[in-house]
């Protein structure tokens, strides 16, 4: 048997190997957000057990330092807080206010790692903003029951039941850090049972 004939004989097997490799690759990439052991939501759930919880329902993340970063790749110039939500318990209402000068950013993340909404204090109306986060069915129900929502109330449809809101408050100088952290205390996160809110 010649070398060439042997190679030709192995060709379908090599092709099959490639096909299997491609399927494994695609599936593992798509599954990664579900199976990754240290995804952002998992990290935040762990932090929430020990970190300070404000009376308004925001978990204050400990300050980042070399070796101890609550979330990787965050800007060390920021004070940060998070609200973890599970929409099975009801809608999430988030209220924030800004003074128009200090940067305050709110981003809404789903468990799968998608940012489904993000804003900064610039898009607040008269320094106020209110979000109602719910699943598609919950938001639909909400919009059917009250026609007159206040103008600063924004309805957000979450792509997944679980997720978190990350609140970032900029300290323009290191000496502003305490003030930036204080601003996180003005953010309110609460669960609203449908029908009551």
């Amino acid at each position, binding site marked *: 048997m010649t070398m060439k004939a042997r190679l030709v004989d192995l060709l379908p097997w090599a092709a099959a190997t490639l096909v299997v*490799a491609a399927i494994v690759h695609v599936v593992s990439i798509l599954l990664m957000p579900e199976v990754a052991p240290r995804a952002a939501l998992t990290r935040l759930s762990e932090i929430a057990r020990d970190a300070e919880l404000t009376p308004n329902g925001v978990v204050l993340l400990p300050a980042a330092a070399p*070796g101890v970063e609550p979330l990787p790749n965050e800007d060390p110039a920021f004070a940060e807080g998070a609200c973890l939500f599970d929409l099975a318990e009801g809608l999430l209402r988030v209220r924030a206010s800004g003074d128009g000068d200090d940067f305050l*950013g709110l981003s809404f993340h789903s468990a*799968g790692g998608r940012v489904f909404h993000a804003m900064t204090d610039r898009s607040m109306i008269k320094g106020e903003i209110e979000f109602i986060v719910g699943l598609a069915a919950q938001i639909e129900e909400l919009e059917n029951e009250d026609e007159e929502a206040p103008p600063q109330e924004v309805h957000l449809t979450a792509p997944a039941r679980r997720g978190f809101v990350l609140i970032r408050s900029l300290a323009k100088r290191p000496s502003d850090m305490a003030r930036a952290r204080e601003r996180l205390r003005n953010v309110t996160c609460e669960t609203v049972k449908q029908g009551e809110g």
Partner: protein
Amino acid sequence: MRRVFCAAQASLERGKQLSSGGGVLAAAGRGDNTGDRRGAADFVQQPFLNYLRAATVLALGLIFGLAATALSLRSGAGLAAVRAGPWTAWPRIGGVDIDPYARAALARAGTAPLGRDQGLYFIARADSGGAPLDGRCEYRIGGATPSARYWTLTLSRPGGGLAPTANDRHGFSSSELLRKEGGAFEIAIAREARYGNWLSPGDLSSFSLTLRLYDSTLDVDARQDAANFPVITRLRCA
């Protein structure tokens, strides 16, 4: 008793032969290995051989597929990168149109990206001349920054983590920088203290710089002009 032993040994040998490489497998599959009971051997061998091949295909496919995943996750935050000089950004990671590769990379690292409507961050792992950022070298960062309400420039490990530094400072924000007349700025990166805006790479042998733009009006769909971004100049190396 002895016969049974011999038979077992023979089949063991055959197994060795089978598992010792594709070439031998192919040869065995064709049934052209010398043996006096060729037909019977083929009859037993062929399905067994194919099972073995299928198992090899599955095992190799699994290894190659996972290797490809590991490699693609290591190489960065997904597709659709925006580049300007030494700076690279992935604007789509902060929106709903994030690609699966970026989503996998972020989940694996545990990162919560900055929302697209909040800002954008650029990472530099090399200077403007293209040489990798080296902790033993001294650098000067200056020039323009894209328009933004605030920006910060941070020095970190190549992977993004903060590193211990001599002065406990990891970066500067646009509002705290010491500026020259006219608003131009200069940041010095060196292990030893420098006048003005100084960042230390500490003991890091290599590092990366992150430029974060907040409330930026930068059009990420347009081609970026490196002249709008800070220039990283290498001065000297120890």
